[in-house]
């Protein structure tokens, strides 16, 4: 197990290097630069700015310098936000995005799993169609529709929540639901099909034949195996939750990292794009590893390897 983790972490290094290099090259290929603006600056001024950030150097020199700094843990200054370093910006806003992602994950699991299990127990009944209909709706509703919709109901009409901000505990509710419901819906579908699949197995029939209580069958025998695909899905889901929070952050004015991730590309803020891309890549690698560990632990066949 330990060896496996160590090996996986070692494999992560070339992946991260690839992410950094590809982002670096693709950005340079994109037309327009970080210092283009509506009002043209004088060519000499522009040359000075570019020299300041080393952008006047040949690409390979820029790349070597960038990799050198990266190895020392320095992501460089943001080209857009004067006086801010990329690692400062990430340190400032990533915890907010992570909190939002974690809460959304809780929503996804707490809402999605019971929904799916319930639907599977009501197989071929109207309740199943209704529950799965709701789940389908959740998948179809994008955040930019769901967010304003929740705001309309719970903020404008009922006045239960602030329409924006990230100041009070209650400010977390609507964003977490907006972000989490899509994943809840997906988890519900996975849980349902997992349950239905397992229920047909011989050993469930054996359990029933032995006269076990249905609740015991569901909890002890079915759920664990049935949730296997759900757990497998949580890895990519987490990746989506933390890197896909841009829309939700914009709707609810949440000072998270998602906005920087998206806008830095529009701003051609080279160092910021590479920095956020690397940060997300690292998170995704770590979460996938975590999910793998959980799966290994869940599966007796791999647990002792």
């Amino acid at each position: 197990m330990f060896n496996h983790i160590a090996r996986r972490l070692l494999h992560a290094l070339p992946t991260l290097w690839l992410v950094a290099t590809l982002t670096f090259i693709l950005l340079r290929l994109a037309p327009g630069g970080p210092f283009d603006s509506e009002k043209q600056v004088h060519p000499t001024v522009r040359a000075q700015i570019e020299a300041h950030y080393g952008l006047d150097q040949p690409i390979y020199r820029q790349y070597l310098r960038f990799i050198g700094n990266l190895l020392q843990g320095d992501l460089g200054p943001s080209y857009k936000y004067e006086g801010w370093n990329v690692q400062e910006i990430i340190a400032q806003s990533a915890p907010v995005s992570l909190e939002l992602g974690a809460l959304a994950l809780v929503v996804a699991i707490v809402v999605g799993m019971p929904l799916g299990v319930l639907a599977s127990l009501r197989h071929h009944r109207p309740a199943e169609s209704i529950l799965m209909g709701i789940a389908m709706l959740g998948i179809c509703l994008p955040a930019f529709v769901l967010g304003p919709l929740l705001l309309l109901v719970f903020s404008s009409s009922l006045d239960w929540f602030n329409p924006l901000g990230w100041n009070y505990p209650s400010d977390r509710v609507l964003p977490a639901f907006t972000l989490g419901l899509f994943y809840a819906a997906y988890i519900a579908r996975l849980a349902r099909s997992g349950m239905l699949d397992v229920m047909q197995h011989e050993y469930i029939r054996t359990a029933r034949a032995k006269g076990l209580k249905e609740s015991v069958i569901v909890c002890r025998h079915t759920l664990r195996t049935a949730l296997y695909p759900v757990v497998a899905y949580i890895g990519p889901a987490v990746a989506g939750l933390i890197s896909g929070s841009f829309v939700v952050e914009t709707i609810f004015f949440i000072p998270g990292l998602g906005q920087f991730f998206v806008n830095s590309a529009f701003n051609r803020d080279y160092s910021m794009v590479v920095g956020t891309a690397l940060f997300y890549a690292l998170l995704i690698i770590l979460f996938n590893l975590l999910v793998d560990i959980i799966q290994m632990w869940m599966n007796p066949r791999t647990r002792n390897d």
Partner: protein
Amino acid sequence: MRDRSQRTIAVRHMQLKALIYYPLLCALLFTSGCGKKASNVERGLKQQELYVGIQSSPSGLDPHLTTGVVEQYILIALLEGLVTRDGQTLEVKPGVAKSWDMSADGKTYTFHLDPNARWSNGDPLVADDFVFSFKRILSPALGAPNAYMLYPMRGAEAYNKGELVDFSKVGVSAPSPKILVIELDAPTPYFLGLLSHVSWFPVHPPTILKHGTITDRASKWTQPANFVGNGPFNLESWKLNAPLSVMKNPLFRDPDSIRLKRIHFLPIPIDPEERAFRAGHLHLTYFVPSHRIDWYLKNQPERIRFDTYLGTYYYGLNVNRPPLDDVRVRKALAYSINREDLIEHILRAGQKAAYHFTPPNTGGYNAKDGFSYDPQLARQLLADAGFPEGEGFPKLQLLYNTSEQHQTIAVAIQQMWKTELGIDIELYNQEWKVYLSTREEGNFDIMRAGWIGDYDDPFTFLGLTTSNSGNNHTGWSNPEYDALIQKSNETLDPIQRRKILQTAETLLLEEMPIIPINFYVRRLLIHPTVHGWSPNVLDRHPYSEIYLEAEPASTD
């Protein structure tokens, strides 16, 4: 057996139901109610704290490096230049300089600094601080985009371009701690107005040098813990994409003139910003989403405002590309746009149709209309150019940066050209930075553009189309026009000067390298408790004039 399992499933069902509903219910009950505090507008009124929506975080707070509008809103709270502007009349008023004299030839200004002027750390503000600041923004190594604003000062341009190395040769000096002398290359009629621009603002030399060299761009001096300013407010807190707060500066030279205790700038995107305003979380926004205009006009007309300001929306034509190299074609395109229709049905915020380039009443200059909507004449001109009824007219591309508004306008104009002239134009949109680079390469036929004046003088508009302007992407170059603009900048007599400018503008519209479409309108939402906020074309709203007071009791 079957029955029993059915029953247990039902029980299980109840338990699962509880599993879903209880946490949800608890979460809702627990969180609703708690955390809902008085709205910002109510709280602000009690404590004289103003909540302003800005659509994006400032990219920086260094007056010598920033170029954006949002940064200006904040910087005029934190720093003060030699002069300020009256929010109502835009008249130049004393700032750090209590008074000034101009020499007879209009080329030398002597400023007497306010003896009470201090930095927020208590240091006295001296004339040398301005010399340091001007040296900083003009230093080539700083790469300040707005350094050109100082070019009227003698030697400033040469120093900024590295042609002059000795800063003492630049026309600024401090004969005594409270006297600053600025010498100009030529009498510049709009010079005093320029001084209220942030690029002329002073910075605190010891603070700059403590956090780096004089030319450090990525310096930490603008962080809240480090910032030393001389404006009516001090920087209290600032994180990116989070509210930026400033609080009243007790050491300001005239602290009694400031009634607000705090200002909070909230960088919220357009749609959430409007929701925040509706929920009482903002006093003021600098934008209203188009789709909400009608709602406000109908339900809360007192909260929406439309103010003209110094900006022109126009289409630039690439005069090097046939058939746009033919002035008759350029005119035909300009004359066949029905601007009134466009404004009434698409822009819908009371914009003014533009039949000249410089917005009305720019520094007292009102240009004459250079043309009118005349599809008949447009067809005639196009026929004369060899394209009767648009026959044989090549399919030109209209470039704009990706945005719903620009697209709607482009589609409407495309249709007008099709109907009136019988020509087909292809629409072509690019993401902002790509568009900028395409435009700079001159790789377009027709391009959408906009220009906002830097200061209240026609030169900021008419200077755009001179041959050596970096912002003239049309390829149009006219020595006669250049000479007129040059001459206008050397003419002190305002009436004579306006005449020269009018001649230049008429020439510009005769040649039509750019097609003016409309003059900008700033549409904003403002809460009735905000007083002293005056509309003006420069979009300058001194915070010393603003205060919060309960709205008068309704009379109905």
